[in-house]
């Protein structure tokens, strides 16, 4: 179904370009502009929705290289879909090394072209046969994941309470997964270090929850995994990050409402009911947390967020928070809680936060 559809889309685009060239018109491709300036925050649905700005890539002397690369990438996608194969983003980059002059020099170039095609067709890259090679996130706690064994095609059940000191790792494709759980909530954690601490002390057992580490900005698969889990099992999701603009705007905001860069798929790759229980500016004062000075890049992020981020613009609570942080000129990491004892976070911080919805941020 999806394959047929995808092939038809690719063919249609290629045919149109062929027609334009033969008619001596300058061929062009039209695609949505992928940027924060081209998203709206749909507060009812709770995610960034793409607005109507498009860019046209007209084939000129200056764009001929990217244009040729886009067509080559389309052709690669066609082959992948036809043969039911997949390529990671990195592999796609290496395949381009066979394209002579049109090869990509660095992977970010091929990623950009891939994202463009994705947005052009309004699909996600998995449908085009490309998969991410990023780490998907670690999971522990009251959850059984129902997956399919790739060699036998039979259902298998993975019990995330029985991972010992290790973790279940979110796969790059999560659409087919099913879940069984009695947990009360999902706790998404920014750093692997904090996650390890909570696993080590079986926090998921005490709090009856599912722990997921994001390790930085969450991958698409991780976002989708949390979303499915939350939707299908009606679980609230709490997010625990550092108290800095990166933790708030890049990690939390991307998890909750998606990114400006891939707005065409945000609808599915975000967790609108997520709530923020991480370090706030208030916490830095109240808990007297050891802090670091804000870096220039942090300030820039705040200014940028205030000016361009529709999510921040919609939530006065976040504006207040960002302003306060800038005034204090400080940031604090989640692991700074260790200053009050290694297990302060388990004994005090988390229980207190979870009990008091007024301390959460939207």
């Amino acid at each position, binding site marked *: 179904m999806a394959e047929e559809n995808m092939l038809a889309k690719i063919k249609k685009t290629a045919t149109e370009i062929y027609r334009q060239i033969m008619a001596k018109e300058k061929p062009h491709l039209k695609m949505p502009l992928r940027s924060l300036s081209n998203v709206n925050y749909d507060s009812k649905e709770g995610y960034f929705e793409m607005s109507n700005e498009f860019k046209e890539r007209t084939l000129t002397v200056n764009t001929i290289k990217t*244009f040729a690369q886009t067509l080559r990438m389309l052709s690669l996608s066609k082959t992948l879909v036809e043969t039911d194969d997949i390529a990671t983003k990195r592999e796609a980059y290496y395949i381009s090394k066979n394209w002579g002059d049109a090869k990509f020099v660095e992977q970010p170039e091929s990623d950009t072209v891939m994202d463009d095609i994705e947005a052009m067709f309004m699909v996600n890259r998995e449908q085009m046969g490309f998969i*991410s090679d990023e780490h998907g996130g670690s999971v522990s706690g009251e959850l059984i994941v129902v997956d399919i064994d790739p060699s036998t095609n039979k259902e298998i059940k993975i019990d995330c309470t029985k991972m010992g000191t290790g973790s279940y790792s979110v796969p790059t494709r999560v659409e087919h997964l099913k879940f069984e759980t009695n947990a009360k909530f999902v706790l998404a954690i920014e750093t692997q270090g904090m996650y390890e601490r909570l696993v080590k002390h079986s926090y998921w057992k005490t709090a009856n929850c599912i722990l997921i580490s994001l390790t930085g900005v969450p991958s698409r698969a991780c976002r989708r995994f949390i979303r499915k889990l939350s939707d299908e099992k009606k679980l609230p999701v709490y997010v625990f990050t550092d108290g800095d603009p990166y933790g708030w705007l890049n990690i939390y905001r991307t998890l909750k409402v998606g990114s400006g*860069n891939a707005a065409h798929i945000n609808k599915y790759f975000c967790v609108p009911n997520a709530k923020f229980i991480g370090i706030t500016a208030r916490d830095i004062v109240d808990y007297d947390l050891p802090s670091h000075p804000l870096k220039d890049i942090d300030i820039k992020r705040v200014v940028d967020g205030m000016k361009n981020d529709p999510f921040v613009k919609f939530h006065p609570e976040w504006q207040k928070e960002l302003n306060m942080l800038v005034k204090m000129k400080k940031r604090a990491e989640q692991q700074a809680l260790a200053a009050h004892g290694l297990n302060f976070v388990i004994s005090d911080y988390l229980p207190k936060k979870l009990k008091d919805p007024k301390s959460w941020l939207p």
Partner: protein
Amino acid sequence: MAEEKEIAYRLAEKQKEVSVAEFFERNRHLLGFDNKRKALMTVIKEAVDNALDACEEAKILPEIKVEIIEMSEDRFRVIVEDNGPGIIKEQIPKIFAKLLYGSKFHTLKQARGQQGIGISAAVLYAQLTTGRPTKIISKIRTKSEANYYELHINTQKNNPEIVKESTLEWKKEHGTKIEMDIEASYQKGAQSVDEYLKETAIVNPHATIIYTNPKAEQVIFARSTNDLPKEPKEIKPHPYGVELGILLKMLKATEGRTLQSFFTNDFSRVGPTTVKEICEKAAIPPSIKPSEVNMQMAERLIKAIRETKIIAPPTDCISPIGKDLLLSGLKKEIPAEFYTATTRPPSVYRGMPFVIECCIAYGGSLDKESSANVLRFANRVPLLYQPGACAITKSIIGTAWRSYGLNQSSGALPAGPVVILVHLASVWPPFTSEAKEAIAHYPEIIKEIKLAIQECGRELARYVLKKRRVSDSIQKKGYIEKYLNHVGGALKELLSLSDKEEARINDSLKDILEKSRKIEEIEKVEHDGSEERLGILQNDEESEVGEDG
């Protein structure tokens, strides 16, 4: 007060007891003798500077021979010979063998030397390192024979010690030749004698320098003009440039009978009205004798001078090289494809007039990858050491070179095939030390340097952008050829086309692009002078890095 004076006198007496040798040993780094390599450069620099000054004062086109002979591993004989006016017999010992003896310290006039310390320091260095006397031959036009001296310096008394004295036949009509044996080391490259002479030749296009290095290779820097630089006029100090110590010295030395005549005779730009104003502000009667002015009064005078408006000093005392001669000097020694130069109008720092000149050479066989080659000069003397401490370097780094078509990372010199020459001409260039290696950071000077650089920069930008446009056009054509087949090839794969169809795609696409390229070029020519850059290799995308998986 009386007691204070006594102490001061006693201190002064003590200071006299310090021998010049000791002074030299302690301060050799200040005088440019920090190491053997630098010592060689400094000795030659002092001799050549003196030779050039002497020739110019006598209105003679300089022809200077420099020879370095390797005697042993770290011992060299340096011979510098000029065709200057020569020195009269009585003065030879003093000029070469008495520190701080010279004509230049007491006047304000643009010259290479300042304090009369340079050449005698070199003589002292030779004496201290090899023990050999310095040999001088000098002949003036009116005498048939030349005077020959072998000199030492009496380091206790700072007086010349004549080792040998005679006359001899010299085929030269007039001139001076100095020969010293010194401890030194010879190396080529930056900060070498070779570099110093080459740069000297650039800013002195009226001089011929014949140089024989220790490997017996001879280089001739031929003169490219027969015009001598305009003779700089002597000026009296401007009150704004005078500090307490100098004022006291001048008060002591003046021939003026009253403070009034002292001010009007010994300073420039001070008339009776100005004297009246200064004296009123300092609450000192103008009729008082200069010798009666004590320390406190002098302090009040200095303060009053600062508060009084005085016309800027005359600027005809400066003799810049001039735009045309700068260009000819640079063209002679630096092989580039584009040159531009400018001479700024005179300006003033602390009562001292000065002029900034700038010259830029670009392209040709200059190194494309390295950072800009900066040539710094003060009163036609190359500054080879301490670039980091110099106002010229600071001004160049502080200029936004990207808008002139060069690359530049922040806080660094611009990069590219470019030579930037800056010359400061002044009656008193403010150096950061006695070795005269770097120009001090006066805001007035930095401002003028930047303005000069900007003038040249704009010319440079015009040339670079024009050149880039031409090469862009060629590059673009290659660009089309390079990627055209990939468009056809990809479409062939996507739509399972035949080879023939692919060829037709390529032909058709080539037509479309060639046409648009030509239109673009016409538009470009119409927008001549615009500073837009063609982002051929830049993606036109906007992307949020690291935000999405």
